[in-house]
């Protein structure tokens, strides 16, 4: 089976859609949803901070700084 596409592997500046999370607990998932990051939302990977982490993303109509470790756990598909 092919590895699922993650936000980490997604191209920069191209919109993708969140399809799910791997290894993210329920309460963390609910909190991320509160910040605007949830299944179905459109995400654009914009730029990495100077040391490569965190990564600034456009999530819906707002900007979030996401840890690299989280970015690797977000499953996405082309939007």
């Amino acid at each position, binding site marked *: 089976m092919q590895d699922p596409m993650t936000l980490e592997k997604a191209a920069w500046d191209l*919109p993708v859609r969140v399809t799910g999370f791997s290894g993210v607990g*329920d*309460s963390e*998932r*609910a*909190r*991320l*949803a*509160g*910040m*605007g*990051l*949830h299944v179905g939302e459109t995400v654009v990977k*914009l*730029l990495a*901070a*100077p*040391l*490569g*982490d*965190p990564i*600034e993303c*456009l999530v*819906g*109509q*707002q*900007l*979030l*700084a*996401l*840890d690299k*470790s*989280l970015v690797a756990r977000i499953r996405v598909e082309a939007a």
Partner: protein
Amino acid sequence: MTPAAAATAPARARRRVVALAGRPNTGKTTLFNALTGLRQRTANYAGCTVEKAVGTLAVDGREIEVVDLPGTFSLLPSTEDERVAFHFLSQAAAAGDDLLVLCVVEASNLANDLSLAAGLIEAGYPAAVAVNMIDEARQNGVSVDTAALGRTLRVPVLAVSARHGEGLPELRELLAGHGRAAAAPRDLSREAKHALQERQMRAVERAHEACAASVRLPRRALLPTIARSIRLDRVFLHPVAGPLLLLATMFALFQALFAGAQPLMDGLTGGLDAAAAALRAALPPGLFASLVCDGVVPGVAAVFVFVPQIAILFTLIGFLEQSGYLPRAAALVDRALRPFGLDGRVFIPFLSGFACAIPGVMAARTIPSEKRRIVAVMLTPLMTCSARLPVYTLLISAFVPASFRPWGFNGQGVAMTGLYLFAVVCALALALVLKNTPLYEKDPMPAALLPPYRLPQPKELARYVGTRCWHFLSRAGQVIFVVSIALWLLAAFPRRAPVAGESAAVAAAAQVEQSALGRAGRLIEPVFRPLGWDWRLSVASLSALAAREVFVGTLGTLYALEGSPEDGGLAAALRDAREPDGSPRYTLATALGLLMFFAVALQCISTIATVRRELGSWRWALGQFAAYFALAYALAFAAYRVAS
């Protein structure tokens, strides 16, 4: 009482309380200020000691209490701020107040902001929604159908602009209107975790549905405010320009703090000295005059002179905060702090700590992990706060010779820079130690909001600075007032009969030496003898437990130099002090030990009280004090031994 007044009396018995709830950066505080104007005060939340902003709003002669709740992202509290907000809501509901939750949302980010409102409405809270920054949304090309939104959410919805006053008259009327006599809302703080998670997910869904039906976004996918922020972030987070700009910002901040504040502080000191002199001349000589002129006035003045520095610091930090730069700075340093078990969020407490540990410790509230917050509160007091400056300046100018010029640099400046670096190194080293304790938590919250860049409004900034200065003055002022009276009493009694022919300075020194303070100093001298301190340094360090800068004042009194306008006099006196056998009383080694001690020891009653309040227990506060005292003692001992 008129019949009309009697008729309204039962209605007044149930107090109308409006709580402003919303995510951070929705303009909640701006709206709070616009609604309540100057009719504000701070109070403590029931059940805990975190401060809240409370104001009153008068509509048609009716007084409404308005509370500005801390910023909240979701129904699952993860920061101290969020816990406080939910605790308040359940308390207010239980107390039977006529509660109305005014959910403040940003018009350009409705889909995300509305989830909190949707969750609270579903939990049965009587609510209304203020769609804020409607002017910015219009510029963004976003249009919001508030009537449709109100129908979907089944609560009143109003579009407002807190900055420009748009929609505020209607909002005031809405807040005064009769609230629904709703069934008791659910106490969210007692709900099971999985129930809250489901509630949260439902709320997110409902917010999106409500938005889809009532918000029209511009044809272009990217809002202009967001597009501008991304362009700025490509500069501020650039691999080369980003760190350079952060360094430049910090440099400018410290320059303004020390160079900019100096003339103001000097002017203030001069004014206060003149006032004290005038007071001394006006009062009949005696104990009362001494209490006022040697005890209270110098003590209070010592605090007062720091106001310009605090004001400058908070103007700059407030500017950085309101412009949206601080979360970017946190993102910049995040990766570099990870190996130490810290993350970017400790940057703001640490930065504030360079002015004063108290706002720094309070800034840790927004850290979304209890353990990480405790770590930040533990380490912030190590940052070189402005109260350490007078002590460092005195000791360096007394014991680092002006002829000391390493690599051609000014040696005294190098020593000062070294002390600042030492504080940071010390904090990082201790962070490494804490990383190996149960206080360490791996990557607590992996997402942070980067709000759009906005130009701070002068009015909001002035209000922010004014409130912070007033807090500093009232809180620190009370402590110093009491301590300076206590110190004076200890130094003034028991009285000593003057000896004929001795000079006033000698008499003053002899009085202090045989006073309760002097005796206490001799009593504790053996404790500090291993550090090379005599009873005078011991007393001065002990009195500096109240506030570090008191060290300089106490030494001044002890060396009978009080009232001497410049430090040079006291520095020279310390340098030239001789033991009866002619050997110097203090050496460079003594000074090094003292500097180490002051760099680490938590000598600040206000900070200890703030830590106790923020962490809710004396155990943390006293444990921190004891640990830093032990570490300071050990470092001072080592420095003294190695150098001598």
